């Protein structure tokens, strides 16, 4: 099925892949040639000049300057080619294209999250349009990770203290493996994701869907889905146990005691404010650590979350 894959390398699905592979096979064939040369010479000599019986004085041919020069200089020629070729592609890999789909990548133990400019976001699944440059701006929440898609021949470490960038342009629709290639602890080998390359229209549709309930889904179900995909689940349970944040069970329509001693009614506006400006009203007994979702969660999605919270309140 994978027509571009070879014995050594997986299929080529990005615009730079063929360039990388070209150099790979150039070095490969040079190496095969050199290895064959070395092995052949060795085998030939050890067989031809194997010891037969007693030893005797051997050849006094002990050095030859021109031979030394020849075998030092000749290999430098392919080496220079390899250096120039490799650097050229490398620079291409690092020169960011101007008109690219920009995605913010966040790595943490042990999953990837992707944020799109229009507010869509996803976890462990990067969805990108085919034949368009995609530029990733990446950072880590904890230790170093590394973004690696073999089929695209791209890899870049993701650092906790600054942004690193990477771009690629996928050349065919399909789903490709995404690995974490820098050791990051227990879940390192499970820090896998997918890159799903789709057509332009599918991409637009997908991004849209992230913001409104998919066809046929009720508002409540959409809220429940957002609860997971927007990571509310990290801090809020739905079964009444308090986590980093209060549980969502029996919040809506109930009175809430705030840290400053006020009591407020948890109505639509309160929930909305809690999401967009969490520090405005801090619940008693909790630290004000909830991030703001301003610009990340759209109005329509807040409606869905509210609808979902309603189902959790008795």
């Amino acid at each position: 099925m994978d027509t571009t894959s070879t014995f050594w390398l997986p299929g080529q699905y990005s615009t730079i892949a063929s360039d990388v592979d070209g150099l790979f096979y150039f070095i490969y064939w040079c190496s095969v040639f050199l290895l064959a040369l070395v092995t052949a010479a060795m085998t030939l000599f050890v067989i031809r000049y194997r010891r037969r019986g007693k030893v005797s004085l051997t050849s006094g041919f002990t050095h030859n300057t021109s031979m030394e020069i020849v075998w030092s200089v000749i290999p430098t020629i392919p080496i220079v080619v390899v250096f120039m070729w490799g650097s050229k592609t490398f620079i291409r890999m690092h020169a960011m294209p101007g008109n690219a789909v920009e995605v913010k990548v966040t790595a943490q133990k042990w999953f990837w999250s992707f944020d799109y400019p229009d507010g869509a976001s996803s976890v462990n699944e990067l969805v990108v349009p085919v034949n368009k440059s995609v530029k990733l701006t990446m950072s880590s929440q904890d230790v170093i990770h590394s973004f690696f898609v073999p089929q695209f021949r791209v890899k870049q470490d993701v650092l906790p203290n600054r942004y690193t960038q990477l771009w690629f342009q996928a050349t065919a629709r399909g789903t490709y493996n995404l690995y974490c290639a820098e050791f990051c602890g227990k879940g390192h080998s499970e820090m896998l994701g997918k890159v799903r390359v789709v057509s332009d229209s599918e991409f637009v549709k997908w991004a849209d869907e992230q913001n409104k309930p998919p066809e046929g889904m009720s508002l409540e179900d959409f809220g429940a889905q957002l609860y997971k995909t927007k990571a509310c689940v990290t801090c809020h349970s739905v079964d009444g146990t308090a986590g980093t944040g209060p549980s969502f069970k029996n919040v809506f329509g109930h009175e809430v005691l705030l840290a400053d001693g006020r009591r407020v009614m948890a109505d639509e506006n309160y929930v909305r404010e809690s999401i967009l400006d969490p520090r405005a009203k801090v619940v008693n007994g909790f630290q004000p650590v909830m991030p703001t979702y301003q610009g990340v969660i759209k109005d329509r999605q807040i409606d869905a979350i509210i609808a979902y919270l309603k189902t959790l309140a008795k």
Partner: protein
Amino acid sequence: MSGKQHHHILPLSTYLSVGAALLVLTVITVAVSQYQLGEWNLIVAMTIATIKATLVLLFFMHLKYDNKLYAVAFLIAVTFLAVFIVLTMLDTMTRDEFGRGSIDKPVQYQSAPAHPGEGEEPASHDTAGHTADTADSSHK
């Protein structure tokens, strides 16, 4: 293995005048540093320090009279130290200059956290909401 050169005993005056030269250079370097000369502060201070170091090496440590091997060895060490610093700075000083977008700045941390132990939160980046789904166990 070369002769009796180690019997070479320097006259008292040599040590005293080298010592005096070192003191004078110290005074000069302190004096110069009282003026703001921009770049030149660094250059002058390092030049004087290097001269002082050379005096110590040549006379106190006898490099001028001893086997040249020691001088060569010392120079090699300094060379490799220079290689280390220069090639490392080749990275640290040219990061993010090359074909990169502008957003790519180091995250600015507050000056050191005042409360030991508590300031460890990882840098918070531009927006929130990247913390999707902490998969305690939900990831395969």
